[in-house]
C-alpha cells in the first residue's frame, strides 16, 4: 500500500521497456500498450479510492524524510488527474492499434506513448518542485518525438514552434526554481508553502510567482502565450493530437493549480487577479481564432485554448466553488476533447480529409458516427444535460458570487461562440450534401471495433452529465482540500 504512489510511474516505464524488447513485433507492442495503460488506469482508480476519504498518500523515495528527499504526494486532485490520464492512455492506445500507420508504429509510437504517460503521471504525483521540472522534461522530450514522428513537412514545422516555445518555458520554470531555492532554501512544495506563509520575502515571491505563471502558462496555452498550440497540434496523426490535446496542456493547468493554491497565496489580489484577466482573454482569443478556421483539427485546437481559459478562470476566482468548477471542467474537458479529436481522426479515416469544404453528407451515410460527434461537441458547447453544462454552470455561479461580472459575461459569450463553431463542423461535415468532388467513403473491415474507444468516451460524457451530483461532490472535496493547504503540509511534513 505504501508503494502505491510510485506505481503510476513504474507501470508505464515497465510497459515501454517491454515494448522495446519486442521492437520488431508490432502486435506484441500493441498488446503491451493496451495492457499497461489498463493497469495504469486500475492503479489510478485504486489510488482515488484510497484518498477519497480525504487522507493524502505520501511516499518518501528512498525513505529520506520529507523536506530532504524526493516526495511523491497523491491528494484528490492528483488522483483524479491520474485516473483521467489512465483513461486517455487506454482510449488512445486502443485507437492507435487500428488507425496508426505501420511506419510510425515501427518507429516506436507505443513505447513513446508510455514514456510520455510516465512523465505525465510523474508530474501529477511530484511533491517537489525540481522533481516536477524533471517530469515535465520527460513528458516534453517524449512528446517532441511523438509530434515529429513520421517527418511530414507540416509536422516538422509545427515541431519547431512547439520545441522552441516549450524549451523557453522550461528555462523560465528552471530560473524560477533557482530563485525560489535561493529564497527559501528548499524545493519541497509543502515546506515552500510554510516558508512563503511566514512571509518576510517582500516582492520576491510575487516576482517568482509571475515567472511560474509564464512558464506554466506557455505549457498550458494561456493568453498571450498560446501561439504554438494551434500551429503544432493539428499536424500529427489523430491519435497523437488526441492525447496531446487531452492531457499535455492540462499538465500545465494542473501545475498552475498546484502552485497557486499551495505556495503562491501571499498576494492573491495581484496574482490571481492577473490569472483572471488572462483567463478572460484566453477564452476570447481561442474562440475567435476557431471561428475563422475551416479545418476540423484546427477548429478543435483553437478550442483547447479557449477551454483552458475556463479552467484558469476558476483558479483566478479562487473560491472553493470556483476551484470545484475548474476540477469538474478538467474532468469534462479531457474526456470530451480527446474524443472529438478521435472522431475527427475517424472522419479522416473514412473520407480521407479534414477539410470542411471537402466533407459532407456524413449524417446520411454514417448516423452512428454523427452521434459520436454530436455528444462531445454539444457537451463542449455546454448544452444540458451533458457534462460541459454543469462545468460551466459551476464556474458561472462562482463568478456571480464573486461579483466578477465581466468574466461571467465573457464566459457566456464564449460559450455561445463555441456552439457556433461546433454547429459549423456539424453543418459542414454531417448535414450538408456531399460535394460533387468528395472522395469516396470506404468503410474499413474493423470499423465497429475501431469506434469502441469513442463510444466509451461518449457514454462517459453522458454519464458525467446524468450523474453530475456525485462527480461534482468529488470535485468539491478535491477543491476543499486544495483551499486548505494545511492538510497537505501536515501530510507531507508531519506535525509541522
Amino acid at each position, binding site marked *: 500500500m505504501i508503494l502505491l504512489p510510485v506505481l503510476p510511474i513504474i507501470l508505464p516505464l515497465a510497459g515501454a521497456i517491454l515494448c522495446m524488447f519486442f521492437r520488431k513485433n508490432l502486435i506484441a507492442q500493441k498488446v503491451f500498450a493496451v495492457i499497461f495503460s489498463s493497469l495504469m488506469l486500475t492503479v489510478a482508480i485504486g489510488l482515488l479510492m484510497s484518498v477519497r476519504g480525504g487522507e493524502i498518500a505520501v511516499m518518501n523515495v528512498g525513505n529520506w524524510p520529507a523536506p530532504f528527499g524526493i516526495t511523491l504526494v497523491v491528494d484528490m486532485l492528483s488522483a483524479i488527474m491520474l485516473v483521467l490520464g489512465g483513461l486517455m492512455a487506454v482510449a488512445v492506445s486502443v485507437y492507435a492499434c487500428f488507425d496508426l500507420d505501420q511506419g510510425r508504429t515501427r518507429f516506436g509510437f507505443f513505447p513513446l506513448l508510455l514514456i510520455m504517460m510516465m512523465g505525465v503521471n510523474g508530474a501529477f504525483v511530484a511533491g517537489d518542485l*525540481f522533481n516536477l*521540472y*524533471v517530469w515535465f*522534461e520527460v513528458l*516534453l*522530450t517524449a512528446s*517532441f*518525438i511523438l509530434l*515529429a514522428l513520421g*517527418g*511530414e*513537412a*507540416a509536422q*516538422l*514545422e*509545427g*515541431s*519547431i*514552434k512547439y*520545441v*522552441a516555445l516549450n*524549451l*523557453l518555458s522550461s*528555462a523560465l520554470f*528552471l*530560473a524560477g*526554481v*533557482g*530563485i525560489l*531555492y*535561493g*529564497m527559501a532554501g528548499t524545493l519541497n512544495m509543502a515546506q515552500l508553502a510554510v516558508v512563503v506563509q511566514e512571509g518576510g520575502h517582500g516582492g520576491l515571491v510575487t516576482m517568482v510567482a509571475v515567472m511560474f505563471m509564464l512558464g506554466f502558462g506557455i505549457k498550458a496555452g494561456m493568453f498571450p502565450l498560446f501561439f504554438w498550440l*494551434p*500551429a*503544432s497540434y*493539428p*499536424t500529427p496523426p489523430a491519435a497523437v493530437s488526441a492525447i496531446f490535446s487531452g492531457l499535455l496542456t492540462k499538465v500545465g493547468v494542473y501545475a498552475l493549480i498546484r502552485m497557486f493554491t499551495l505556495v503562491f497565496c501571499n498576494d492573491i489580489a495581484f496574482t490571481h487577479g492577473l490569472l483572471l484577466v488572462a483567463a478572460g482573454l484566453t477564452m476570447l482569443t481561442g474562440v475567435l*481564432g476557431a471561428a*475563422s*478556421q475551416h479545418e476540423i483539427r*484546427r477548429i478543435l485546437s483553437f478550442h483547447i485554448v479557449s477551454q483552458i481559459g475556463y479552467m484558469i478562470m476558476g483558479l483566478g476566482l479562487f473560491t472553493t466553488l470556483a476551484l470545484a468548477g475548474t476540477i469538474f471542467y478538467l474532468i469534462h474537458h479531457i474526456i470530451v476533447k480527446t474524443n472529438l479529436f478521435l472522431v475527427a481522426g475517424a472522419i479522416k479515416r473514412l473520407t480521407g480529409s479534414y477539410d470542411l469544404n471537402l466533407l459532407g453528407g456524413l449524417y446520411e451515410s454514417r448516423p452512428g458516427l454523427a452521434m459520436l460527434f454530436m455528444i462531445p461537441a454539444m457537451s463542449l458547447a455546454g448544452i444540458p444535460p451533458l457534462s460541459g453544462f454543469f462545468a460551466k454552470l459551476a464556474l458561472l455561479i462562482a463568478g456571480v458570487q464573486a461579483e466578477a461580472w465581466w468574466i461571467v459575461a465573457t464566459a457566456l459569450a464564449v460559450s455561445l461562440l463555441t456552439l457556433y463553431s461546433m454547429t459549423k463542423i456539424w453543418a459542414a461535415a454531417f448535414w450538408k450534401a456531399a460535394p460533387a468532388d468528395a472522395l469516396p467513403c470506404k468503410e474499413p473491415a474493423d470499423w465497429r471495433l475501431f469506434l469502441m474507444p469513442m463510444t466509451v468516451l461518449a457514454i462517459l460524457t453522458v454519464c458525467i452529465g446524468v450523474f453530475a451530483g456525485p462527480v461534482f461532490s468529488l470535485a468539491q472535496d478535491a477543491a476543499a482540500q486544495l483551499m486548505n493547504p494545511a492538510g497537505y503540509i501536515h501530510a507531507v511534513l508531519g506535525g509541522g
Partner: protein
Amino acid sequence: MEVALAIVIGVLYAGGLYLMMRRNLIQLIIGLGLLSHGANLLIFTSGGLREGGAPILEEGKKAFAAVPADPLPQALILTAIVISFAVTAFALVLFLRTYEVVGTDDVDEMKETDT
C-alpha cells in the same frame, strides 16, 4: 562575485533571447543553449556562493569546521545540464531534418502551419 555573475547571467539571457528572435534555425538553437546556461548559473548564484568547506564530514567528526558549501544547487544544475544536453541534441536533429524536408532554415518562411 555575485555582481559579476549577475551581469554574466543578464548577458546570457539577453543574448539567448536575442538569438531566439532571429530568423535562422541555428541561431535559435544557440539562443536556447545560452538561455539554459543562464538559468543554470542563476541557480548556482542564488543557491549562495561560499568559499571553503566541502560539504563532506571528516572522519570521526560530527560538525563542519567551516560553513560548508550547499551541494544541492550543484546537483540540480548537473541534472539540468544533462537534460538540456539531450534536448539540444534532439533539437539539432529536428532542425537538420526540417531543413532537408522544408528546404529552408528561415523561420519566417515556415508559415504553413500558421493561419
